[in-house]
């Protein structure tokens, strides 16, 4: 379990040290000298660890300086490595040489905290999330930056990747898209119908979420976490609450843990149902869209009846859950599941036997396994490209330690695989819900938590329906929120979409995009 930690400790010897102020129930945090930060990337690469997240923090309120933290993961082990960054020289060695996802993490750190990644490979210092018309010295995550201030717009130009040659043309799309979806900009270079390159530019829904956390109480933070990405409200709120509970060494009552898992699986089922329908719709097969939307609506109504909210917003709170399942709840769910499952299997059979759908979905939008691994993709996108990653298995918490999910991993890496993994996951989530209901403990649904001590940090991961969600919380001198770093699965999986699109045709882009269905809001924060 401690192999990454031992690897780092062995390599760095006495120059590395275990940080104090990290809660014992959270993952270990190792401090290394700034000049050796790049070596960490190299050592971790050799140990086959992936870079799960990288973020910066301003610790001036605690009388310290800036710091950059990198989260590495391998099998069941998570490890945080940090380096301190002095105020008068806000720069840190880049990890991007060995870990491609670092490019965007570090552009984000530069844009929002003003710490410059250095090293000979980091040629891409274009702002990310921060748009070019922000004042260049606006670094919202610094404590010296007032959250409520108005920024003036400045002149600026974003430098796109260009392609030139006879017959090459460019298609700009967005930020306002054709459908009822979130805003983002995509720029294609194409030749005829073939896509040569796709470049994403996001950040349009940036509403200062991480900064907003610093103005809220720990309790209100759960409401905000539930609105980082509305479709993953359960997963985000749960990850946040688990981090808060790690911070105060609090435990949730068993019944609350079970209900949380039931909600998390219901969120997975609802979103998977809607997306499988939407994938078929983007292949111009409206029949499936309406059939699956109908099933999704039944789940949402079930949520409302059982827990009082169609998307289960604000149902998960630090210490437990805000609502209990009524005495007839389990039988209502069982009834719902029986009719849902019968209808689902009937539609899936039609889906599976449909040759024209097969023709559109198979071999489209291939994300090769090697690329998926290199880019550190997570969730169903990774599992459809041969990566056995599911942090319900790798970082299990109660009740997943007793009821592990059955992971589906496919190797065809295409749109079909991404849809089929989700079909299997719906089946498995239904199985899990049944097992959880059969063993649902009685008792309290929430427990009081202690006050958060000053200058402590904690880390939590939860497998939402999109994949691994990462939260890192740090308390300030008064025990308030000093930093809430969030990594939605979309932050890494957006990179994979750019790679999966190579060799496809422009009309297949909506289909590929839908098969990933990333969150814009969760990425832009």
């Amino acid at each position, binding site marked *: 379990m401690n192999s990454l930690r031992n690897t780092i400790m062995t390599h760095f010897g006495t120059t590395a040290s275990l940080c104090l102020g990290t809660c014992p129930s959270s993952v270990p945090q190792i401090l290394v000298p700034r000049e050796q930060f790049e070596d960490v990337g190299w050592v971790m690469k050799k140990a086959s660890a992936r870079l799960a997240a990288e973020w910066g923090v301003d610790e001036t309120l605690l009388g310290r300086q800036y710091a950059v933290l990198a989260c590495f993961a391998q099998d069941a082990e998570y490890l945080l490595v940090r380096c301190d960054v002095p105020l008068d020289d806000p720069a840190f060695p880049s990890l991007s040489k060995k870990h491609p996802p670092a490019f965007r993490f570090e552009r984000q750190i530069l844009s929002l905290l003003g710490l410059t990644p250095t090293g000979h490979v980091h040629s891409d210092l274009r702002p990310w999330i921060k748009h070019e018309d922000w004042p260049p010295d606006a670094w919202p995550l610094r404590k010296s930056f007032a959250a409520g201030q108005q920024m003036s717009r400045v002149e600026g130009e974003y430098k796109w990747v260009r392609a030139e040659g006879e017959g090459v043309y460019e298609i700009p799309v967005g930020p306002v898209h054709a459908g*009822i979806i979130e805003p983002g900009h995509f720029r294609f270079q194409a030749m005829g119908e073939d896509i040569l390159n796709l470049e994403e530019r996001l950040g349009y829904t*940036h509403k200062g979420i991480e900064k907003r956390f610093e103005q809220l109480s720990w309790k209100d933070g759960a409401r*905000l976490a539930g609105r980082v990405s*509305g479709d993953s409200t359960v997963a985000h709120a749960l990850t946040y609450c688990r981090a808060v509970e790690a911070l105060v060494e609090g435990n949730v009552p068993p019944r609350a843990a079970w209900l949380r898992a039931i909600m998390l699986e219901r969120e997975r089922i609802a979103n998977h149902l809607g997306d499988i329908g939407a994938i078929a719709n983007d292949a111009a097969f409206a029949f499936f869209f309406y059939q699956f939307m109908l099933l999704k609506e039944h789940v949402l109504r079930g949520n409302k009846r059982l827990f009082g909210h169609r998307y289960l917003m604000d149902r998960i709170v630090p210490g437990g859950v805000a609502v209990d399942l009524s005495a007839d709840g389990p039988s209502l769910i069982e009834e719902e599941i029986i009719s849902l499952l019968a209808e689902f299997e009937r539609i899936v059979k*039609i889906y599976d036997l449909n040759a024209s759908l097969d023709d559109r979905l198979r071999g489209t939008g291939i994300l090769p396994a090697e690329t998926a691994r290199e880019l550190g993709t997570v969730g169903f996108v990774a599992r459809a490209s041969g990566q056995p990653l599911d942090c319900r298995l790798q970082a299990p918490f109660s009740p997943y330690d007793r009821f592990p999910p059955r992971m589906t991993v496919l190797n065809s890496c295409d749109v079909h695989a991404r849809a089929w993994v989700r079909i299997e996951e719906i089946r498995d989530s239904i199985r899990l819900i049944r097992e959880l209901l059969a063993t649902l403990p009685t008792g309290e649904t929430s427990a009081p938590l202690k006050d958060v001590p000053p200058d402590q940090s904690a880390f939590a991961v939860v497998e939402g329906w999109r994949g691994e969600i990462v939260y890192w919380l740090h308390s300030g001198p008064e025990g308030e929120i000093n930093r809430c770093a969030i990594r939605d699965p979309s932050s890494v999986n957006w990179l994979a979409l750019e790679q999966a699109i190579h060799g496809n045709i422009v009309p297949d882009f909506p289909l590929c995009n839908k098969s990933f269905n990333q969150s814009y809001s969760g990425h832009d924060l």
Partner: protein
Amino acid sequence: MLRILHQIFRTGVVTEPLPEQVEAELAHVGGRLEEAIRRRFHRSLVIREVDAGSCNGCELEIIAMNNPIYNCERYGIQFTASPRFADLLLVTGPVSINMEIALKRTYDATPTPKLVVAVGDCGCHGGIFGESYASLGSVSNVIPVDASIPGCPPTPFDLLNGILRLIDGHQP
């Protein structure tokens, strides 16, 4: 093909069997909405949805308005890909500074007369995000708004109801 037809007939028209209370309300609201749309928009109200920075919760419910149970098309409500064809902009918020220009341009691209509806608590008053360096808060801080539909997120029924009230001339 036979399986598809079989499933279609098996499913039948699902737009009818709503929970009793909602059904009664929806039938009432929907009937009036249809009438108002017939009178004022020649049977078709075309909507352009603009996400100006939402968490995507409101989008889920706007999509659900199109599902077979709410089936907003039966009242002549359609969603369009272009603001040029739109009678009404359905805007979710809070408006982020990075979407401010795009929202204004979408508004300008919509032919007059046009209606704007602010959707969700965030679209109405900024919600939990409030106003900050990155968020301009409510939609009305950026473009003129004719009606508001609060909720987090507002249900498909709230949305249909809110649109009706606006078209019928009764501000909620």
